[in-house]
């Protein structure tokens, strides 16, 4: 229990940085003590502004950082399409104006004005494009390049245009030029400075970049001043003259119907100015190292902030500031003391990187350059006077060395004797190891050591797992190649080749094998291994094939064709324990059980002397059964109405529930009823790994549904469906797949989701890692399951219907078949003699196994 009143944080702005703040507040537990209200001005939730240009190809949905439009944590509330107009620092309130919704009469209700209290205010208002005071800048056809709405407008205007101009040849300007090229316009870039990307590149690098860019059909005009935008109402062209010439000197007109301003950004600090918070001379709310303004209740982060007087126009420093403020609110020590302004990106298909002291401003700094005009490569290293340390550099055309070079700057690692080797073409360059402390992902501050730790200690087996575990490469993505190399290098150093084949007997992946079995209709291991494998199989491929066959047919797993393929536990329909005895778990759907059934479990446990324990899945585990006792124990259970709980299978385990609206005064839906229905629907479904579900009756989430492979949380309007959660060594929180569903839609989405997983996941891959490694991740799952983009929906549902219809209790069927019961004997020639190595002692009034004496001959030391 938290004592005291909950505090309220109001976040102004829902761009990338405001979103990161909310995310960090949830992840780091700040929402345990604080409610968070986020107010966003744009009509949609935060999206990836760094990747804005890909909107043309991918659309808004793909860029979204919060596709469901709401946070999973109900203590964070997001209000969009609303503007904060005033801050009252005395009353500690903000005034918010929301535009009228379509349903409201414009004349009587021009927009709602609301006032919200805050205990803590976080300004994350970002920056606005700077539009230089060029005559004619208000004409039709003039745009900026900042939001999805801007892009929509540019796209619409381009349909009537043949050529376009971007004013500004910086990073963002080239992005905008790329967009105009994609829209089919003859494209010009106009830059006042004598070269492109003047902040990051030197003259030689700029010239190299121009050659690349012009090859793509973009005409570059550097060193020119914009005089006037021509046209009556709509733009017809831009008049320019050479920089350095007098006014009145000859001018030139570049024809265009679209003009995009991309001449830099300015912090949006007006709210702070109006409430008398100090701003930096060049703009931006002045904050200290904790990103706190002079008012201790107000913080500023991202592009609207100026820590120490400097504004940072990149996302990584903004993320760092967001984390620092969450830390400060948790009384942590974090501080923001400046940022790595290194840049690496692909502009119009050209690699460009600039890092550290790229312009050799350090006293005595020396420059080493390599240029190949033919292939368009330019590389420069800036080294210290003694040639021992790398200070910075520029790479154009080939930035592959960036992953090694930039960490060398931050770590201060000594340079090799011939530093030029680092930028010479690969054939003559010696490979250079990266130090462990080198930062690989600057967006999320992940070092090489963090990545190696994830691979060697945390069980990450591929890039997807490393990304999920460390967050490396999940923001701008520029380090993914480096992460991949590190992962592969690690496995290569262990003598392992990353091979997706199932085992030595099959080169196919589980998914490929699943398809092969489906296409050929195989039912026997022998046919499959003869046609598609080698040898006689092993403990990896045989259970995998048994699982695939079980998913595609409804045949009993102990039929002669498949009995020998089953893994230890499936083979005896029970869970083997350390002394060779088994545990028994009857199904208790949704955790609901009658007193009569509870008594039966107690009686069976008492009569067979079994140890009993309540499981995490809301059922009861009975331990210490000898293999030959299993049929008799199950006879009692089946007679009392129990069935197999499949605790032994890679299959659905339980659907956990809270008591829901039936009893709980907070519940809004019948969570127990739904949990039972889902558990009975998916019971016995064989899958690549175990499957768990949960249903919570309200947002308090007492069933911990988001820690499950599929979690359902009740809302006032229906159900929210979350997927990809698990506990265990690498816990994962399930993420929202779809919201406010009626029960029928929920079940159809779940049918599709589970069958899609069963079909395509690797062996022993939980849903979380499966989603992570799918190309497109959760968005891809949503496309297939919700949007039915592959047209597979009906087929997946039909497969699930076949499973549901074909379900029969494995234990009841086994008890009815003498052939299947034959295997349940201790010794084939002495069926009544118990295994003499099994012995028990008593602890806390129940049995416990006595550790078997290890046999002396050949036993491990």
């Amino acid at each position: 229990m938290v004592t005291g009143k909950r505090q309220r944080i109001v976040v102004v702005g829902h761009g990338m940085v405001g979103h990161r703040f909310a995310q960090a507040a949830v992840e780091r537990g700040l929402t345990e003590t604080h409610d968070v209200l986020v107010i966003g001005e744009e009509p949609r939730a935060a999206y990836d502004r760094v990747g804005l240009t890909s909107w043309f190809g991918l659309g808004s949905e793909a860029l979204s950082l919060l596709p469901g439009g709401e946070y999973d944590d109900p203590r964070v509330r997001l209000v969009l399409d609303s503007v904060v107009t005033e801050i009252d620092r005395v009353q500690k309130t903000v005034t918010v104006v929301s535009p009228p919704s379509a349903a409201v009469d414009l004349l009587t209700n021009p927009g709602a004005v609301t006032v919200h209290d805050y205990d803590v205010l976080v300004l994350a208002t970002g920056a606005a494009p700077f539009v230089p005071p060029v005559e004619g800048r208000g004409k039709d056809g003039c745009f900026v390049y900042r939001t999805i709405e801007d892009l929509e407008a540019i796209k619409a205007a381009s349909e009537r245009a043949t050529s376009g101009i971007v004013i500004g040849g910086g990073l963002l300007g080239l992005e905008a030029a790329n967009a105009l090229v994609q829209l089919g316009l003859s494209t010009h870039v106009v830059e006042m400075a004598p070269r492109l990307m003047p902040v990051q590149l030197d003259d030689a690098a700029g010239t190299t970049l121009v050659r690349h860019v012009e090859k793509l059909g973009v005409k570059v005009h550097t060193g020119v001043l914009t005089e006037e935008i021509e046209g009556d109402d709509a733009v017809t062209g831009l008049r320019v003259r050479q920089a350095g010439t007098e006014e009145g000197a000859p001018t030139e007109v570049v024809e265009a119907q679209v003009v995009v301003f991309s001449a830099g950004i300015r912090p949006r600090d007006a709210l702070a100015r109006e409430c008398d918070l100090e701003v930096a001379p060049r703009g931006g709310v002045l904050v200290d190292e904790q990103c706190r303004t002079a008012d201790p209740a107000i913080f500023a982060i991202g592009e609207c902030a100026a820590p120490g007087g400097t504004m940072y126009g990149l996302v990584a420093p903004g993320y760092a500031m967001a984390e620092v403020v969450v830390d400060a609110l948790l009384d942590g020590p974090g501080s923001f003391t400046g940022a790595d302004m290194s840049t690496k990106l692909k502009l119009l298909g050209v690699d460009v990187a600039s890092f550290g002291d790229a312009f050799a401003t350090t006293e005595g700094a020396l420059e080493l350059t390599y240029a190949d005009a033919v292939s368009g490569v330019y590389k420069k290293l800036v080294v210290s006077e003694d040639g021992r340390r790398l200070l910075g550099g520029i790479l154009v055309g080939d930035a592959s060395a960036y992953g090694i070079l930039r960490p060398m700057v931050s770590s201060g690692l000594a340079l090799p004797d011939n530093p030029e080797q680092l930028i010479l073409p690969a054939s003559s360059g010696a490979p250079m190891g990266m130090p462990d402390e080198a930062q690989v992902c600057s967006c999320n501050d992940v070092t090489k050591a963090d990545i190696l730790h994830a691979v060697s200690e945390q069980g990450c087996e591929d890039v997807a797992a490393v990304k999920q575990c460390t967050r490396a490469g999940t923001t701008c993505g520029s380090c993914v190649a480096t992460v991949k190399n590190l992962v592969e290098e690690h496995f290569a150093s262990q003598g392992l080749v990353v091979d997706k084949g199932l085992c030595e007997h099959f080169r196919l992946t589980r998914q490929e094998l699943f398809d092969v079995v489906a296409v050929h209709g195989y039912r026997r291991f022998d046919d499959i291994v003869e046609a598609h494998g080698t040898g006689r199989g092993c403990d990896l491929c045989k259970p995998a094939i048994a699982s695939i066959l079980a998913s595609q047919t409804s045949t009993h797993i102990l039929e002669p064709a498949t009995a020998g393929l089953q893994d230890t536990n499936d083979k005896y329909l029970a869970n083997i324990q350390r002394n060779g005895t088994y545990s028994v778990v009857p199904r208790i759907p949704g955790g609901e059980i009658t007193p009569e059934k509870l008594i039966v479990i107690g009686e069976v446990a008492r009569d067979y002397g079994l140890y009993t324990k309540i499981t995490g899945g809301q059922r009861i585990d009975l331990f210490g059964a000898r293999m030959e006792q299993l049929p008799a124990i199950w006879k009692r259970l089946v007679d009392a109405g129990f069935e197999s709980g499949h605790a032994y299978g890679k299959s659905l385990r339980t659907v956990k529930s809270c008591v829901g609206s039936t009893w709980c005064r907070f519940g809004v839906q019948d969570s127990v009823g739904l949990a039972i229905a889902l558990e009975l629907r998916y019971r016995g479904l064989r899958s690549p790994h175990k499957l768990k579900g949960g249903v919570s009756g309200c947002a308090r989430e007492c069933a911990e549904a988001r820690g499950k492979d599929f979690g359902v949380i009740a809302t006032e309007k229906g159900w929210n469906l979350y997927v990809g959660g698990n506990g265990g060594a690498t816990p994962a929180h399930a993420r929202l797949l779809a919201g406010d569903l009626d029960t029928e839609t929920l079940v159809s989405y779940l049918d599709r989701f589970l069958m899609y997983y069963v079909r395509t996941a690797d062996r022993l891959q939980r849903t979380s890692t499966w989603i992570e490694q799918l190309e497109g991740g959760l968005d891809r799952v949503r496309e297939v399951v919700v949007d039915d983009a592959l047209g597979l929906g009906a087929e997946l549902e039909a497969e699930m219907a076949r499973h549901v219809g074909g379900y029969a209790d494995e234990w009841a069927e086994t008890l009815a078949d003498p052939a299947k019961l034959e295997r349940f004997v201790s010794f084939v020639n002495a069926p009544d003699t118990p295994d003499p190595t099994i012995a028990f002692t008593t602890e806390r009034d129940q049995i416990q196994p006595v550790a078997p004496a290890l046999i002396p001959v050949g036993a491990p030391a």
Partner: protein
Amino acid sequence: MSATMTSTAVCTVETVPLEGGVAALVDGVAVAVFRTHDGAVFALSNLDPFSGASVLSRGIVGSRGDVPVVSSPMYKQAFDLRTGACLDDDAVRVTAYDVSVVDGVVLVGAPREVT
């Protein structure tokens, strides 16, 4: 060498599933009897040396390279059905037994000498 040792009849050969195993009690000792895909019969001590549990007969029978193996149901180490050698740990070996099939009956003989 072991010509004077008696063999114990444990079951009919059909009782041992193809690519599977059964446990038998031979002179009070648990022995696992296996049959491979080609019908060949093998016998090893039933005790899994890594866990100390008497469970090897419940393992999955298959192959590693050309070697017929059973993998322990407990921690999955593979044992050579012919010799009892553990393929995952050179220092470990389980006892292999002489075994034959006479008139459709499996006879388990003496423990094999380790060569």
